[in-house]
């Protein structure tokens, strides 16, 4: 009886790892392997020999590894059956909106930084980065007045910093979008 338990446990474990397959396919695989094990035992005329069972099971390998070979093609992405175009277009839509929002955000931030840099050239007091005294915050202002109780950081250095940072972010966004586009 214990030997039958060996077989039973093996097949049960295999079934667990085959759960990604359709139930009919998984059942078919298990049925075939079960049939093989019993046939092989009969062939040896050793219905209850634990050694023989262990040898046969070893030939199949660990349930997990055996199942992995049956499931491999699913993980590698089999093309969806025809009639599933709706799912594909939803997927595509999600990718498109991600693509667009990432583009808007990245280029938006880049444009604001570059504009701020250029604006400071013409209106030095119109834009600035302020460190609030005794505080932990930094404030970026677009205003004609200095920010109360605070000290301006960078001064005119803000011009190259803002323009450089803006261009860098713009370039980064461009690269990310190019990579995304390649993928889809």
């Amino acid at each position: 009886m214990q030997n039958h338990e060996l077989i039973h446990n093996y097949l049960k474990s295999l079934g667990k790892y085959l759960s990604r397959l359709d139930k009919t396919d998984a059942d078919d695989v298990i049925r075939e392997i079960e049939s093989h094990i019993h046939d092989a035992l009969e062939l040896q005329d050793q219905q209850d020999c634990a050694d023989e069972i262990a040898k046969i099971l070893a030939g199949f390998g660990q349930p997990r590894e055996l199942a992995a070979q049956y499931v491999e093609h699913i993980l590698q992405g089999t093309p969806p059956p025809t009639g599933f175009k709706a799912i594909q277009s939803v997927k595509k839509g999600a990718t498109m909106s991600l693509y667009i929002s990432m583009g808007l955000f990245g280029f938006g931030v880049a444009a604001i930084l570059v504009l701020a840099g250029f604006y400071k050239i013409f209106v030095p007091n119109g834009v600035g980065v302020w460190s609030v005294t005794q505080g932990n915050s930094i404030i970026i202002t677009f205003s004609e007045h200095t920010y109360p109780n605070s000290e301006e950081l960078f001064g005119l250095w803000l011009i190259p910093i803002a323009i450089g940072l803006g261009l860098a972010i713009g370039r980064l966004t461009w690269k990310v979008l190019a990579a995304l586009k390649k993928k889809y």
Partner: protein
Amino acid sequence: MMKKADDINDKWDVQLRKGSLELVILAALKERQLYGLELLKFLHGLETMAITEGTLYPLMDRLKRDDLISASWVQEGELRPRKYYQLTEKGEKKLSTLTSRWRKSVEDIELLLNNPGPSLILKKGS
């Protein structure tokens, strides 16, 4: 020394089988229907073809998905049902393609083995 030679043989067999296993299975099923255990025992009877159960069954599954073989459960009398495999039309075509490539490879290797240096001898007509 003997052990080392066996080791080389085993490694060679494994490497060669990796590339030729599909041809081996298709050839084994040519003009006959076999079930898994029968096919396995058949191959084990050949010196360089001893594959394991864990290699055979997933491979059969892939060949079936690729429509190179088909399978059907058959129950004979009181016996346990067995899943028999046979070639499909596509499988037969693939077998004949692979067979001619295999023969070409063997021919080329033989040519190399039969023509040691120093001079390079080209096959007649090429």
